[in-house]
Structure formats: C-alpha cells, structure tokens
C-alpha cells in the first residue's frame, strides 16, 4: 500500500515538474519572439491574434520534441530574422556581437593611456 502511495506521489510530482519545465521553456521562447503586428511587444506580452497563433505553433513544436533552436529557425525561415529578438550570429550582425568586446578593450586602453600619462607627469 505504501509503495503504491509513494508511486502515485512520484508520478504526480514528476508530471508537475515536467509541466513547469515545459512552461519555462515556452515562456523563454515567447519572450524571444517579436509580435510582428504589435508595437514593441513580444509574443509573451501580446494578446493579439498573431501572438495567440504563434503560441499554439510553438506548443505543438515542443510537443513533437523540437528544441528552441529548431523552433527559431522554423520561424526565421517563415518571417525572417526580425521575428527573434536575439539575432543569430552572421556576417551582417558581426558588429553587434563584437561591439561589447571592442568597447571593453578600447575603454581599457583609454584608461591605461590616461593612467600612464598621469604617472609620467608625476615623475616629471
């Protein structure tokens, strides 16, 4: 009896965990998808007809075992890169990806030059 009871609890808990994990993945995907008919809203934020349909399609794709990247590439093939907020790495957006590193290095160089200069001035 105890074993059956424990088994039922295990099944209930694992189903709950699986559902919440799925919900989290769905929400993450919705947040990264742009609602094309809304003003600056993601699919997660929007209640538009378009957003509702995209949500259904994403749910279907998750249910058939597709992962995030596969879902994004499917939607990009239909609506272009504009549908995702986080763009994929490509030649055209190379700058976008390297800019933060560039700023970091350039900022470091400027600070280095200023510090060296002030040290030189002090020693002189």
């Amino acid at each position, binding site marked *: 009896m105890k074993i059956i009871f424990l088994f039922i609890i295990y099944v209930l808990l694992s189903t709950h965990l699986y559902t919440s994990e799925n919900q989290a993945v769905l929400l993450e995907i919705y947040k990264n998808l742009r609602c*094309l*008919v809304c003003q600056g809203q993601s699919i997660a934020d929007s209640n538009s*007809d*378009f957003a509702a*349909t*995209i949500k*259904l*399609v994403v749910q*279907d794709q998750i249910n058939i075992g597709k992962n995030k990247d596969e879902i994004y590439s499917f*939607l*990009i*093939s*239909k*609506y*272009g890169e*504009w549908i995702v907020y986080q763009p994929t790495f490509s030649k055209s957006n190379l*700058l976008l990806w390297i*800019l933060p590193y*560039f700023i970091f290095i*350039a900022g470091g*160089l*400027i600070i280095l*030059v*200023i510090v060296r*200069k002030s040290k030189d001035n002090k020693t002189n």
Partner: protein
Amino acid sequence: MKINISKIIIFIFVGFFLLIFWLGLKKDNNYDTKNIIGNKIDSFQLSSIYSNKFISEEILKENKFTLINFFASWCAPCRAEHEYLLNLSNNSKDIKILGINFKDKKNNAISFLNELGDPYDSVGYDNDGKISISFGIYGIPESILVDHNLIVIKKIIGPIDQNQYNEILELVE
C-alpha cells in the same frame, strides 16, 4: 608634433559609434517578405470547406500557377480584394486560386462566398490559423503566388489592388 594617442582613440571611438548609428538608422526595420520568395512552400493538409476531403500541396503541382489567398468572412479588406480574385479566376487560364479560410466559421465563409461569388478552385479551412504560420502569414488578407514546383514567386500583404492584379497577370503570362 606630439601625437595625442588618447585623443585619437576617443576620435576613432566616437566616429565608430556615429557610423553604427548612421547604418542603424538607414536600415529598414519593417517586416518584409523577401525571405520567403524563392523558397518552396511546406507540405500542408487542410480539410475542404465544402466536404470532408483533404487539400494538400499535391493539387498545386497540377497547376501552372496557384494563388493561395488567405481570407475570412469577418475581414473587411477581404471584401475589397474579392473582385480582383473573381477577375483573376475569369481572365487567366494559367492561374488557379486556392482559398484558405482563416480563423472563421465554415457557415459564415460559405455565406460570404455565396454573397460575393466564389473565385476559388478549392477552399481549405484553417480554423486555428496554425497552417497559416507555415506560409509566413501574420494577418489577412494575404496572398502567395506559387508555381508548379511550389516555389513562391510573390507574396502580397494586404488586399490585392489594381497594381498587384496587373503584376500577377504579368508574372503568369
């Protein structure tokens, strides 16, 4: 002349940012359809609005050109473009029209076609709009012109007008 390295770095930095902003402002961020043109449409299966028969991409292969038109009885611009669809159906032998009824009630769609005339060679039913996503549709009316290889030649967002009607005829002739 002594070169001030920090000034040069700041100058390059500011120049670089201005270039990025200028390029960013020049870029058109409006959604367009260029990514779908030239691609093959996905396989699909829709139930017919008139019967229990299924409509798939296979029937499009039999046509020289097919215009896939997404419409609904509740869509006012669909009424506006309807006369152009009727004209296309009457005036061009090379083009067949597949209607896809989008998020509508079957009875309303049938009444709509009875009232305005039926330009479609077949009419499929997409009650939850999921099929429309595989065609890159985000509102209706929208139309997609494909050839017998199922390659997208043109996509029209919004109602078909006189210019687009002429363009379709030019493309299929």
